[in-house]
Structure formats: C-alpha cells, structure tokens
C-alpha cells in the first residue's frame, strides 16, 4: 500500500462526501432499525448512517442476491410467449460494510463467475461499490482472523475506511472506488506516513483483542475432505440441529437457491429464491428418493461445502469468513466453531 492509493478526509467532511456519493447510486448503509437491531437499509439522508455498530445480523448479500430474485419475465403476447431478462435497478453503494462481508462478496463473485459464468450476477457486482469500514474492535462472536477475512483487509474492497481520530483514512482498492472520490478534491489529501502508521497500529491492536471464539480449520479440513468424520459423529451433531436453515440463509457466502415461476401481470416471473441444503426437501427427488434423508448427511453436506479442501481448491477460498452470524442464528448448537472443533477432536458435547 503506497501513499498514493490512500487519502484522508476530516471527520467533519464525511457527511458531505457521503451525500455526494448518494447521487451516484442507491446508497445502502447500516442504520438503526425498529426493534433495536442494526439493519442495512437504503438511506436517503447520510445522517442515518451508523459509524459505530456491531455487524448487522442480516447479511448484505441480499443486495446482490435478494431472497426473492426476479430473473426472467415470461409474458404472453399475440404471437405466443415472450421471454426477457429482468433489468437490474442499477448502481448501488454498499457503505460501511465489514471486512468479513467484503471477503464474502469476493467469494460469491468467484462462485458465480466460475465454469458457466452468471453474467447477470457479474453485471450486478460490477454496478456495486463496496465501501468497507475496517474493524478496529473485534465483534463478540467473530473469528475472521481464522479465515483471513479481517479485521482489516489487504484487498477486495473498493474503498476501505479506517477511523484515525478526527479523520478517516480511505484506502483505494479499485478504480470503482477511486471514482467515488472524484469531485471531492477539497476534502481529500494524500495519507501522511503517520496516518499509515496509525492504521497499522490499529490493525495490530484489533488482531490482538480477538476473543476466545477461534476456529482452527486445518485438521478439520483434512478430515472432512477425506471422509474421515464418522457418520455417528454427524448423527450426534444432527440431534442438536433443528434444521431451521438459518446458518445457510444468514451466511454471507452461502448462495443455494431454487427456481420458481410466479404468476403476475397475466404471465409469470421466473425467480431465484433462497433455499438451504439443511432442508430435507433440498435433495428430495420426484420419485421420493432422498440421498440426504438423514439430518446427519445434511449437516455433513454443509461442512463439506464450507470447509473441504476440494471446494477450497475449486474456489480458491474457504467457504467461511468468520462473521459469527451462524453462531447467533443457530436454533441449536451446531454453529461453525462448534462443529469444526467437534470434527477436529472427534467428539461432540451432546
């Protein structure tokens, strides 16, 4: 990181800059929601944006992969059936996302781009700008350190913000990010050496303060990849899972879906809707045969996709960014750190 690719902006100028950004696309940022939760919402006034917050439970992946995602319009016209792709609304800036979620977006992009590329998704991703707010304080349940997904990032962001006290460091990670600074020359000055030193110190400090929640993937990956986790252990863990699907739906790197046609406007709209490998019917065939009828096999499937060497080699990344959401949302006791520990030790608490 050189001085040229990092600038600072005084904290008092932040809102004005954000206001300007808001004219460049839909601005989505964490705001205080009803019920005491922090939620990513489309903001109309920058004053709503939170700068000191714990990562919202709802992952920002829903802004690139909505839970109900219209893809194709199918309509009858005089000549028969006409099909057309659903246009994407356009540019959006995801503001104050956390390092783990930025890494997750990189993972998702790779997954959609590989093999048969989902050009539509890539176009959405191209039109999305990620402004990341580095974590100077670890969140209570996060273990991004174990996934190389935080608390600060080396790359993957379009802009990475670090609060230095009185001013914000802005690291430019891409041309898309740099564009957001255009026209704001009054506000920005190149980062001084002491700014970069402070950023380094903040990162080191944050890393030091990570709590007990750790997740050692190494040996777990070996066992999962070679089928050496006994079925009895999966079955035992499965008894502590209530197959809510929350872990996969809340996970910023999960993207399983089903395809359904919804009747509307005298025709149909083909939609991609979130689905979960944790549901029994996910693999239920028309004949009634279900290769993953037992919950143990479904739990096994989840962790194979997230933690196996085969997927790691295929995707170039671990299927986990250590955001800790699955710990919060699990309707049982089968979150990522708990299961990885069980795989490593060959035993489960239950």
């Amino acid at each position, binding site marked *: 990181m050189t001085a040229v690719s990092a600038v600072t902006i005084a904290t008092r100028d932040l809102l004005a800059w954000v206001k300007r950004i808001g004219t460049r696309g839909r601005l989505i940022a964490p705001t205080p929601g009803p019920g005491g939760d922090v939620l990513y919402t489309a903001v109309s006034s920058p004053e709503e944006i939170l700068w000191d917050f714990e990562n919202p439970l709802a992952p920002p992946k829903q802004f690139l992969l909505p839970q109900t995602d219209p*893809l194709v319009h199918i309509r009858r016209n005089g000549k028969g059936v006409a*099909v057309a792709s659903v246009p994407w609304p356009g540019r959006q800036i995801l503001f104050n996302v956390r390092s783990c979620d930025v890494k997750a977006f990189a993972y998702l992009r790779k997954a959609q781009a590989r093999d*048969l590329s989902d050009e*539509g998704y890539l176009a959405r991703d191209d039109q999305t700008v990620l402004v990341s707010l580095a974590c100077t304080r670890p969140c209570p349940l996060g273990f991004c350190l174990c996934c190389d997904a935080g608390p600060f990032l080396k790359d993957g962001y379009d802009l990475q913000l670090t609060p230095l006290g009185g001013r914000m460091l802005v690291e430019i990670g891409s041309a898309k990010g740099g564009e957001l600074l255009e026209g704001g020359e009054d506000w920005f000055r190149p980062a001084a050496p002491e700014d970069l030193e402070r950023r380094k110190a903040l990162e080191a400090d944050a890393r030091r303060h990570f709590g007990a929640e750790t997740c050692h993937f190494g040996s777990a990956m070996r066992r999962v990849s070679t*089928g050496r986790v006994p079925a009895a252990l999966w079955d035992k863990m499965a008894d502590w899972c209530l197959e809510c699907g929350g872990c996969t739906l809340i996970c910023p790197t999960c*993207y399983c879906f089903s*395809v359904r046609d919804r009747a509307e406007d005298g025709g149909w709209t083909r939609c991609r809707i979130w689905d979960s490998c944790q549901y029994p019917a996910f693999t239920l065939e028309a004949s009634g045969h279900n*290769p993953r009828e037992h919950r143990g096999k479904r739990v096994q499937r989840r962790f194979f996709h997230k933690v196996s060497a085969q997927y790691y080699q295929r995707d170039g990344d671990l299927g986990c960014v250590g955001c800790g959401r699955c710990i919060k949302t699990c309707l049982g006791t089968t979150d990522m750190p708990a299961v990885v520990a069980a795989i490593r030790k060959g035993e489960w608490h239950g």
Partner: protein
Amino acid sequence: MADLFLPRVATVLSQRDETPDTRTYRLGFRDGAGQDGFGFKPGQFVELSVFGIGEAPFCLASSPTRRDALEVTVRRTGELTDALHALAPGDEVGLRGPCGNGFDLDAAEGKDLLFVGGGIGLPPLRGLIWNVLDQRARYGRVTILYGARTPTDLVYKDELKAWAARDDVQCLVTVDRAEPGWEGTVGMVPVLFDRTELRPATTLVYVCGPPVMISFVIQDLLMRGFGEERVISTLERMMQCGVGKCNHCCIGHRYVCRDGPVFSYREIRSMVE
C-alpha cells in the same frame, strides 16, 4: 441479467405415447436457425419449462445427427410432468440447455459398445444409440440389452423391433413379468448377459435405469471382468438451475448438472460427500 436462466421458446411438434405413463415429445424452436444452432451431445439434458408451473431437467432422447426436432421422453411423476402431459402440439414450452457433459463419443470410436437399459433408463441411451447407428462404421460391435417391468412398460417399442431386425446390431429385450402375448425373455436385465457374447477388454458399457437396477447390473459387469473406467452410467439428482449454481445436485464438490450426468463407475466410486 439472466442469460443463464433465460429459456428459449420451443413448440411441441408432436407427441407419442410410449407406455400408459410415459410420452415422447418432439420439440422445435420457433426459429429454424435456433434449431440448427442448438448443438448438443447425447447424454446431455435440457431444463424444460411448462410456463406457470416450473422447470425440470429431462435428458435429450434424440441424437444430434437428427436435427429436425429435439425429443424428450417424459414419465408422469408429479405436478410438472402432469402439466407436460396435458400439452398438445402447438403449445409452447421453455428450453434451457444443453446442460451437462454428455457421453464421450470420441472415446467410443473403434470400441465395442454395450448398452444396458432398464425401464425409463432407455431414453438417455437412445440418443447415443441413434448417434452411433447413424455413424455405424466408426464403432465396433453394438449390443443393446433392455428390460422393463412388463411388456407394456417397454419404451420405444417400434425402435426395439427395428434394432433387433438390423444385422449390424444385437438387441435383446426382457421383461420382469410377462403379459399375455409376450413371447420373449422373462427375467431381470442381467439374464441377458448370458445370451450375448461379452468382451470386457474391448467394450465400453453404458448403463441407465433405476438406481437399484444400475447398482446390481454394475456389480454383475465388474464380476464379469469389465474395468471400472469402462462402465459408464448417468447419475440423477434433484436439480433446479442445471448450470452448476444452485447446489442442489452436488455430490461432494461434483455437480451432476456440470461434471455429469454421465460418469464412469470409477468416478462414481471416488466421490466423497
């Protein structure tokens, strides 16, 4: 956005009943150029939409050597196939594809080919069989062994007779249970192994059928000396997108809709969940 999910519109050209619950559809694209441009390999499948009901994967039962229409053979098993069976010539459907890897015809050149089908497993093989027969000189001996529960359940009844009548093909048929008028073999498919000359060293075997049938046929073949890499089958899984994104059809990190549905038995055995 959705090139991967955007179906092309095709028309039902005609249909033909194979059995009381199975029907073959001939489909054509609206534009002829679309028809010619739709290159595919036998063993590949399409995602067929009945608009307003949904989409499901169906293997192409026709050969790429015969481009006037695409054919799929569909058994009624649920909401979508019920709706499909209610369609008539002129009705429009959606088509995405071709999906999957298909059979490797290059690897089959010069080899003896053995086709072993059970029940509704013949359609995926049929495309390959016609492809081979349309380029007969490229291949060695061609043997077709097929069985169904009863004579009524046999699909492609006329073609089975036509294949049997050819002298460059051996086609043997059996049924688990006879019906009045059946004069052919009675017994499960493996009984046909003893009625033909098997040459494990030079033969590629293609096996398709219900999972239980595939399982014991493959074991039988292995015991008769066929190598694991020479036994080729198709795997089925619940599918949604057909293009390797939705993750429904995964076995380990393999996607039946992309790395398959055609796999050798050696590949199937090595799959880790």
